[in-house]
């Protein structure tokens, strides 16, 4: 029996839409909304992967709330959908029941002005209280910008720790290094961190609003600039969503090459973070070594695609940059060198007692915690969660892919996942290259369709999700983007509890989450 059949024995949906192979949209009555979400949460063993609102007041005079869960066992996305009329802007808060809905509901409240009734936390995420006046909700279709910003006179309400000897340490938004902006508020008792509160949103650029009304090619360019270190994963997720809408299947050669580029992106970022972890314990020699590995992969990307960050490679229907036979041979040789470099680096790191002492059992994120707060991707796999969107999909299935999972959830595990995945990526790329057969690189979308679909790609941090809705002119009606960082920042806040403050940079680097991908 499928999850949907079990579900429908308990709750009768008002309408069911299964137009894509791996997506089901179940519209429910308002009273059934919370029970339906809880049912999928339990049946799918999935956190809230996405929760977003569409403003459909023009055509149907209602807002529609979509809450997505992923059933890994069926490789199927279930959406609980709730329509509510434009004048009644309340919906029952899910955050009281499922923790991973909290951030999404805060986002809906600030972006649409729709009130999650009974929500435990309604502070702004991105439109900072100090800057943005009340009553201007950017993602409403009838939004107009406020006449003045920056002088609201309000501040953010941080959670305060109280007790003898507790003190607060504010850090950021401008940090010491060359890194994105974020504000971290530590409450500590002596050295140990009692609580860490993250305040993000500093790099908010209004990406989802900018997407609206763009044609697909312009929107694709924008998707590459959402999170620069995941440019390929983001553009790929965008393209997959658009391809589903147009009913296209990219040619086999394009599918294999996309997988090659996706793994190259994973490799340079993993090399970067392995070096970053070494740097944050002061082991500069190995950090420099890792930065050379990263640079070599960036140069390789540049040679293959004319972009060190793999921008401009994806198009809807396929790719633009081929890897010729000669280049493929060169690529294989370079991968072999990179692999031996990485193995040497691994040996240097693991034979240093002082390095191991710093990373071993530091910043533990327990499996139960990770599951409860909805951690995904690399950080989840280091804590024993097995979700990896590459499992059981082509071309990964034929290459014998299985996800790298560790149990302990400390910095060492997150490091080990990276080391193993780097080696795995080398093998995968070689396997993909071996299967390359001559053929076209892209198919061209002919039909114009008004539809919606989800594109989901396992980027190096975790699942990158693009939910895309096109209008009849092939323009973007709504684009919801979820970068894995949005789920995982909260994991960092839990991992550092009880650790000493000097270990914070190390824990932070072991997650290495995107500011811009989170802030959008």
């Amino acid at each position, binding site marked *: 029996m499928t999850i949907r059949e079990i579900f429908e024995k308990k709750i009768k949906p008002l309408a069911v839409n299964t137009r894509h192979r791996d997506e089901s949209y179940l519209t429910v009555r308002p009273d059934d909304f919370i029970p339906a979400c809880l049912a999928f949460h339990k049946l799918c063993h999935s956190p809230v992967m996405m929760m977003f609102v569409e403003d459909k007041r023009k055509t149907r005079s209602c807002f529609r709330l979509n809450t997505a869960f992923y059933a890994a066992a069926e490789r199927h996305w279930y959406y609980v959908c709730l329509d509510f009329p434009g004048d009644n802007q309340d919906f029952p808060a899910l955050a009281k029941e499922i923790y991973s809905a909290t951030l999404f509901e805060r986002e809906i409240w600030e972006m649409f002005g729709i009130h999650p009734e009974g929500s435990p936390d309604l502070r702004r995420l991105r439109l*900072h209280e100090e800057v943005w006046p009340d009553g201007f909700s950017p993602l409403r279709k009838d939004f107009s910008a406020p006449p003045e910003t920056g002088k609201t006179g309000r501040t953010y309400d941080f959670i305060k720790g109280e007790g003898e000897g507790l003190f607060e340490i504010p850090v950021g938004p*401008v940090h010491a290094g060359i890194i994105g*902006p974020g504000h971290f508020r530590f409450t500590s008792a002596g050295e140990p961190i009692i609580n860490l509160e993250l305040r993000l949103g500093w790099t*908010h650029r209004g990406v989802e609003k900018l997407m609206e009304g763009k044609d697909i090619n312009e929107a694709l360019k924008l998707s590459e600039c959402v999170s620069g270190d995941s440019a390929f994963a983001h553009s790929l997720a965008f393209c997959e969503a658009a391809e589903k809408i147009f009913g296209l299947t990219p040619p086999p050669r394009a599918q294999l090459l996309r997988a090659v580029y996706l793994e190259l992106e994973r490799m340079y970022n993993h090399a970067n973070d392995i070096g970053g972890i070494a740097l944050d314990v002061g082991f500069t020699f190995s950090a420099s070594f890792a930065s050379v590995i990263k640079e070599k992969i960036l140069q390789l990307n540049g040679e293959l695609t004319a972009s060190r960050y793999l921008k401009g490679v994806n198009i809807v229907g396929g790719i633009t940059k081929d890897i010729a036979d000669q280049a493929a041979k060169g690529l294989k040789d370079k991968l072999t060198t990179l692999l031996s470099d990485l193995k040497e680096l691994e040996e*240097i790191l693991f*034979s240093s007692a002082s390095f191991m002492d710093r990373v071993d059992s530091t910043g533990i994120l327990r499996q139960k915690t990770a599951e409860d707060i909805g951690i995904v991707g690399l950080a989840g796999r280091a804590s024993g969660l097995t979700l990896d969107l590459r499992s059981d999909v082509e071309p990964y299935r034929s290459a014998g892919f299985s996800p790298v999972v560790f149990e302990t959830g400390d910095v060492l595990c997150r490091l080990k996942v990276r080391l193993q995945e780097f080696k795995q990526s080398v093998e995968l790329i070689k396997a993909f290259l071996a299967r390359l057969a001559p053929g076209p690189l892209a198919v061209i979308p002919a039909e114009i369709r008004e539809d919606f679909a989800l594109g989901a790609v396992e980027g190096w941090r975790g699942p990158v999700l693009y939910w895309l809705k096109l209008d009849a002119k092939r323009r973007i009606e709504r684009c919801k983007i979820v970068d894995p960082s949005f789920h995982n920042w909260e994991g960092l806040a839990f991992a550092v509890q009880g650790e000493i403050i000097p270990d914070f940079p190390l824990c932070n680097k072991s997650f290495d989450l995107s500011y811009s991908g989170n802030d959008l």
Partner: protein
Amino acid sequence: MAILKIIKNRLVKGIVDLRREELIPEIEPLGQKLKIIIDRRFKGSFHIREVDTGSCGACESEIIAATNPIYDIQRFGVNFVASPKHADALLVTGPVSRNMLLALRKTYEAMPGDKFVIALGDCAINGGLFKESYYTLGGVDKALKVDLFIPGCPPTPVEIIKQLVAFLS
């Protein structure tokens, strides 16, 4: 054990050179030019404070790449510093998100006199793809007087060094 391996490697392999000049041929002559200028104008050390005002992270990645052993921009006298009080120049990336405006101004004000501002990347120059947004200013020059623009999405480390040389001389 590790130390034995290092000694063995040292004896077997001799001095291993990265051979930068093969990887990036233009870096040496360019860097030497930069060094001469920095020696003359900044007594050998040119300090930069970087601020991200909403970039996607690719510009940061390229700035960091300029400090890796292959480009190794430090050897020409360029250093990235933690405190704005130690900086000669402010290097800004991103289209200036409204949230970052205050932090950007405060960082600039904390720098000692005789300072200048570099806007790096297409977003920082005029907002790039984020020009039209309700939440960006659309370029660093809307907030501060900018002395040098380095275009690119993102500019490569070589491009960054080239532009620095052209501007400082």
